[in-house]
């Protein structure tokens, strides 16, 4: 059943794929964090004519499948390379979730903090930058971490637009050497090894912030 030889042979390919997975996840999550913050700020503090359409668009992206978005972008924006497109679509998709997370964090900043800012005449920009956002982001570090892990686990979807991430590599190896069991097991193992410590870290962070 299990062919140790094949597994050993599959390892380099799987690890190379893992490199691509990480290279996709890190910038995609950066896009999600920044764009998510912008979306949250526009919805919370922007003018109504902008906030409403943005809220609608974010809800649309959030409620349609990532897989469909990847295909659609692949067809509609042929100018971009698959990895770049994948990072942007993945980042945008998660940005719509993170904007909700940020919003919760912002809402959790006590009213008294805003009132203190008014009493000190702090300008709006400064209120957001120096008082509200630092506390809001701190409030939501654990859910942000959880979303990072789940985004990491969704990167295999990028294979449908030909990004050679880990599952794509495992699949290719499996079909050429007829060793699916070995290559996919390795890929799963690597996912586990990477996700597990991250989620433990997130849980620890959560506990520390709650204390």
């Amino acid at each position: 059943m299990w062919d140790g030889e094949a597994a050993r042979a599959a390892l380099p390919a799987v690890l190379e794929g893992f490199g691509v997975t990480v290279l996709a996840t890190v910038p995609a999550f950066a896009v999600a964090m920044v764009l998510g913050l912008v979306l949250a700020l526009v919805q919370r503090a922007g003018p109504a004519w902008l906030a409403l359409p943005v809220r609608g668009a974010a809800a649309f992206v959030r409620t349609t499948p990532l897989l469909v978005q990847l295909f659609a972008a692949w067809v509609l924006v042929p100018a971009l390379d698959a990895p770049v497109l994948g990072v942007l679509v993945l980042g945008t998709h998660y940005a719509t979730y993170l904007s909700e997370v940020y919003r919760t964090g912002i809402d959790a900043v006590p009213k008294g903090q805003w009132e203190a800012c008014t009493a000190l005449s702090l300008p709006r920009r400064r209120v957001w930058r120096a008082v509200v956002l630092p506390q809001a982001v701190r409030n939501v570090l654990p859910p942000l971490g959880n979303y990072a892990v789940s985004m990491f686990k969704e990167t295999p979807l990028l294979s449908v637009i030909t990004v050679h991430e880990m599952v794509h590599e495992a699949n290719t190896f499996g079909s050429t050497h007829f060793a699916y069991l070995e290559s996919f097991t390795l890929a799963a193992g690597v996912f586990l090894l990477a996700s597990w410590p991250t989620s433990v870290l997130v849980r620890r962070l959560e506990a520390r912030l709650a204390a």
Partner: protein
Amino acid sequence: MPHENRDDPAVRFERVTKRYGDRTVLDGLDLEVGRGEHVTLIGPSGSGKTTILRLLMTLERVTDGVIHVDGRPFSHMPGGTNGKLVPASERHLAAHRRRIGMVFQQFNLFPHMSVLENVVEAPVHVLGESREDADRRARDLLDLVGLGDRADARPTRLSGGQQQRVAIARALAMRPGILLLDEVTSALDPELVAEVLDVLRDVARSTDITLLCVTHEMGFARDVSDRILMFDRGRIVESGPADELLESPAHARTRAFLGRSGERGRPLR
């Protein structure tokens, strides 16, 4: 616009009404506080005392009437046709509320900043002071409130009384002409009340700041106030010099209130 006049009261409420839905908190209130005067508002909870401070700090907007600060319209501004007063824009408020500072019942310090950063934040980012100047002055103010050695601590590491003293230093750092004190000892453990009141007595004596306090500490009210106003249901029931009003209140409502708080010039708790 009329020029600032030394004789203008620091604060003047002109027929100010504040309603929340169909609940009227202030009902056509007229009120004047002179420059450098120390006025304390007393009265049962829900009588509208705190609302007065919140309106002045622009945390709430008036429903009707006009608030003047230093002889100029504050809640309103000239505008519309033939200079009629219209509700003030956010910009007008921002330009004029710097004169006013407030200390809150719940301190409202910024928990993610050090004590020193709390105090220098507004002088640097609102008054445009250099970080060095602001630092130096903040340390002086922290010395004044007896916390010179806690400048680098996080507010959450301090006792309630210490936090409230930092909040006082933070408000003073903006050099306000008018300082609003909203039940500043109500959230404190009894043994921490005195240290905060001592600091405020110092401030009241050593500056020419205009003070407007809401408090249940009658001893403090007597010590620092030139005048005490007894409030009930959004109206001033009685007003007079501190000693007089506390010793021999003219109005039955005041007698009942002071009687119920069970003391004469001693702290409530």
